[in-house]
């Protein structure tokens, strides 16, 4: 993929729309996984990932090498997602009359999209530390390799395996508990 990314980066920097779109398609899933891991909210994740990717694509000159593009992009997504969390914390501290019209964070879109399985998965993910959420989403949802995840997070491959093992075990235990509660 690195060769393709190198080729696409060169063309995209020259304003090639098709190359830019291909870069988006190649990285949108991983970027969304990171945004979801940090925010825990699919609607907010969609918003923040779009803003972050636009910001990244307008700064392609900052990319040092094709190999560093994905980690660089995901760091932008991570930073913006954390900024969103901080602003969300400030908003939630405001008096009630200034609070958002939907204080429970729900939206019509989210309500209609909600499914039992997705809710359970989200509830399960919410119990994990952020780094484990990111590792398990990038690996099990997006299909990234341990090495790629390690490069993105700046941690050794062995640590990625450790986080993945713990995340899967905790997630499975949580989902089983939720199923038992329902049963």
């Amino acid at each position: 993929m690195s060769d393709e990314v190198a080729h696409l980066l060169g063309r995209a920097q020259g304003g090639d729309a098709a190359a830019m779109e291909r870069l988006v398609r190649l990285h949108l899933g991983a970027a969304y996984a990171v945004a979801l891991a940090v925010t825990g909210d699919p609607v907010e994740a969609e918003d923040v990932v779009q803003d972050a990717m636009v910001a990244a694509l307008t700064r392609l000159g900052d990319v040092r090498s094709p190999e560093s593009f994905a980690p660089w992009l995901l760091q932008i997504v991570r930073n913006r997602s954390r900024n969103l969390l901080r602003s969300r914390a400030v908003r939630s501290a405001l008096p009630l009359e200034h609070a958002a019209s939907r204080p429970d964070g729900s939206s019509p879109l989210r309500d209609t999209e909600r499914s039992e399985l997705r809710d359970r998965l989200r509830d399960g993910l919410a119990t994990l530390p952020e780094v484990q959420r990111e590792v398990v989403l990038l690996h099990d949802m997006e299909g990234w390799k341990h090495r790629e995840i390690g490069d993105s997070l700046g941690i050794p491959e062995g640590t990625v395996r450790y986080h993945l093992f713990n995340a899967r075990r905790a997630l499975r235990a949580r989902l089983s508990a939720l199923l038992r509660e329902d049963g």
Partner: protein
Amino acid sequence: MHERPVDLSSLHPARDPVRWEAMVANITGRALAESAPTRSPLAFLVWWARPTLAAAAAVAAVSLGVLATARGDASGATAMRSVAEALNLPAPVADWIVEERSPSDADLIHALEGDIL
């Protein structure tokens, strides 16, 4: 150390192709719009001033030509050549003056397009 993968596919944004395509289009469109080159104010002034300066030079040339015709003596041609050179007018414009002829329509269009400046 192995734990079976968890099926997280229901959380993937591509599960809804319409929303996925909308996101791709939105990101690409906004990125293209925001990275499009913009014309700086200085570049705009230069772009605007070039034909204006050409027009001013043409008017000056016509005026000097009329003056030279009115005087009608030999020293007038020399004086006009000096004036034209002092004004740093292009050679074709100076020629109109010294030859005591008014520029043709083609000459003026040529000058207004800025090709001779």
